[in-house]
């Protein structure tokens, strides 16, 4: 596999009256051709801002991309001019936003909205674009697409609107599809439908998919590799198996232990991560997870670098190598009631 997107040291800050919010604070990762990459983290960890920065969709002011490189097909997207950027958005990189209710224009028919990128990027006529739109609606499983293509967004349910968004995102055969919380607003049975559709469509066209979500389950089902973000920084990244079976960062471990699992037989007490995520304006020095970390030591006053702890598995934690041992001891203590 070849590298499709290479992000190096990306920094996106927001300048507010209260101070500078370092929403993305030096993040590096890559996306391989055709893979599904999951980006996980809680609200405010910088996962959406990071994705918006790739397409330079950060409102300026208050936001600003302060530095770093976003290399897509050999070109740094942060350096190209806005006209070239427009040729990439919706064309080579598609995007699906979180809210299917508000990301479609309510006064235009679905046909108009689906035709727009095709007319713009592929120079199709409206008639050609409209028939392509009908095909795409069939691909994402919208029944009766010949007639429904002329309907307005309010005539569609939430799940159907999100399918329309996927169809628009995939319409120009992008190399990369960025899906920002694509199923968060949807019910669980509809979520399953939409994810299956997205997966099938990306397999068919060989599109790489970046799924941004707070749901660890969604990522487990579809992602090849996973990035875990915390407070604007990369906590850990690696293959899905590594992240779920051999987590090397206390935050990842804490997240996995704090979600109730549907397949858990015993009713075990959830191991919680104590405290709250840090205020991004007033970040503690050193490791951002230190105040909540049960394994923190004095060394954590110094920011841990993201380092390779196993082939292809990176963690930004000083005790990454001893984490399994430390966690076992902690669980024993919890079971004995010492904590």
């Amino acid at each position, binding site marked *: 596999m070849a590298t499709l997107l290479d992000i190096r040291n990306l920094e996106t800050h927001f300048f507010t009256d209260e101070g500078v919010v370092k929403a993305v604070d030096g993040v590096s990762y890559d996306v391989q051709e055709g893979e599904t990459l999951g980006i996980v983290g809680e609200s405010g960890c910088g996962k959406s801002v990071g994705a918006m920065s790739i397409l330079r969709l950060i409102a300026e002011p208050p936001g600003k991309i302060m530095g770093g490189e976003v290399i897509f097909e050999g070109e740094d997207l942060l350096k190209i001019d806005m006209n070239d950027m427009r040729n990439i958005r919706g064309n080579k990189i598609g995007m699906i936003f979180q809210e299917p209710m508000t990301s479609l224009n309510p006064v235009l028919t679905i046909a108009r909205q689906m035709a727009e990128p095709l007319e713009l990027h592929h120079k199709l006529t409206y008639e050609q674009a409209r028939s392509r739109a009908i095909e795409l609606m069939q691909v994402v499983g919208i029944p009766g697409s010949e007639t429904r293509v002329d309907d307005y967004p309010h005539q569609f349910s939430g799940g159907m609107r999100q399918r329309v968004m996927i169809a628009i995102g995939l319409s120009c055969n992008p190399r990369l599809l960025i899906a920002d919380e694509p199923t968060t607003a949807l*019910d*669980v049975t509809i979520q399953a439908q939409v994810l*299956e559709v997205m997966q099938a469509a990306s397999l068919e066209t060989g599109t790489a998919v970046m799924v941004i979500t707070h*749901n660890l389950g969604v990522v487990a*089902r579809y*992602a090849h590799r996973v990035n875990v973000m915390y407070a604007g920084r990369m906590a850990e990244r690696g293959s899905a*198996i590594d992240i779920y079976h051999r987590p090397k960062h206390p935050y990842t471990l804490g997240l996995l232990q704090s979600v109730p699992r*549907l397949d858990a037989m015993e009713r075990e*007490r959830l191991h919680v*991560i104590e405290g709250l995520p840090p205020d991004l304006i007033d970040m503690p020095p050193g490791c951002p997870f230190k105040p909540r970390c049960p394994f923190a030591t004095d060394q954590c006053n110094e920011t841990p670098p993201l380092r390779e702890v196993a082939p292809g598995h990176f963690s930004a934690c000083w005790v990454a190598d001893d984490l399994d041992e430390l966690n076992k001891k902690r669980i024993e203590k919890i079971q004995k009631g010492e904590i």
Partner: protein
Amino acid sequence: MTTDTRIQSENLLEVSGMKMHFPVTAGMIFKKKIADIKALDGVDMQIKRGETLGLVGESGCGKTTTGRCILQLYKPTEGSVKFDGQELTTMSTKELRSIRKRMQIIFQDPYGSLNPRMSAGNIIGEPLIIHKMTNSKAEWRDRVAELLTIVGLNPAMSDRFPHEFSGGQRQRIGIARALAVNPDFIVCDEPVSALDVSIQAQVINLMEDLRSQFDLTLLFIAHDLSVVRHISDRIAVMYLGHIVEVAERLELYENPLHPYTQALLSAVPIPDPSVEAARERTVLQGDVPSPIRPPEGCVFHTRCPIAIDDCHQPEVMRTHEFGSPEGFPGLRDVGNGHQVACIRV
């Protein structure tokens, strides 16, 4: 915990045949009823003392309406709600007010459910004043401080306003308010859905502690099946205003009988890639139909993978051995308290 010598039935709450139809009106001046939204269409449920009953279903299935009808926040169109043997639906407002001391609710939205102009202390202490549960200002203040401590907040925070708290802390305030009157029964309406994963676990653990500390009976409403299964003793699954299956937590997971429950379970992702790779899934086709015109017969037949002709026909349902007189599949016991409403099982 109770020292009452009366013979108590095992069930604290008994709901039978509860219906809630909201009218849909048309016209500006002369409002005319044109249809009914059948939010609940014959709900039966029992909650035992000290038990946590989980209620799951997708948006619009009537879970929240069920909770509100039980507390008489909505007057059910039909049916009976018995709390500790007393019929609630025929009670006067005054009688209801005194019994509400024993039944409380925790709302989903930790932002919208707290008055932004009241301090945390006043929010938590308001029920104490309404129900005249404290005799002096000092006693009131002590009780508010005690409640804050119980839910893991610092009593010094009592003068702060809701906007000064995080989502998880606000939900703790909502829990403290519900606990203020020492209730027996609490309806928890999606109490953790709006919270981040790590905060969600904190609130779930808190609720489990409080449940055993205060001997609470809970109706725990949520759309997240993993959370419901974690906290509940028994689980009821709802679809379009009907309860389609009720079972013990392990039984429901190991032996789901209703095709909707099966699909719902298989749609919930499990955070483990190797488990996910090995799982079989049933992906349901289509959307939930509108409750204004629910499908005839079994309401699930439009999406059901095993539906037959009989499922569409209310006349067949009325005479079917597993049907109900209303023309739906009836909720029947298949052993060990496992109930299912499907003629094909």
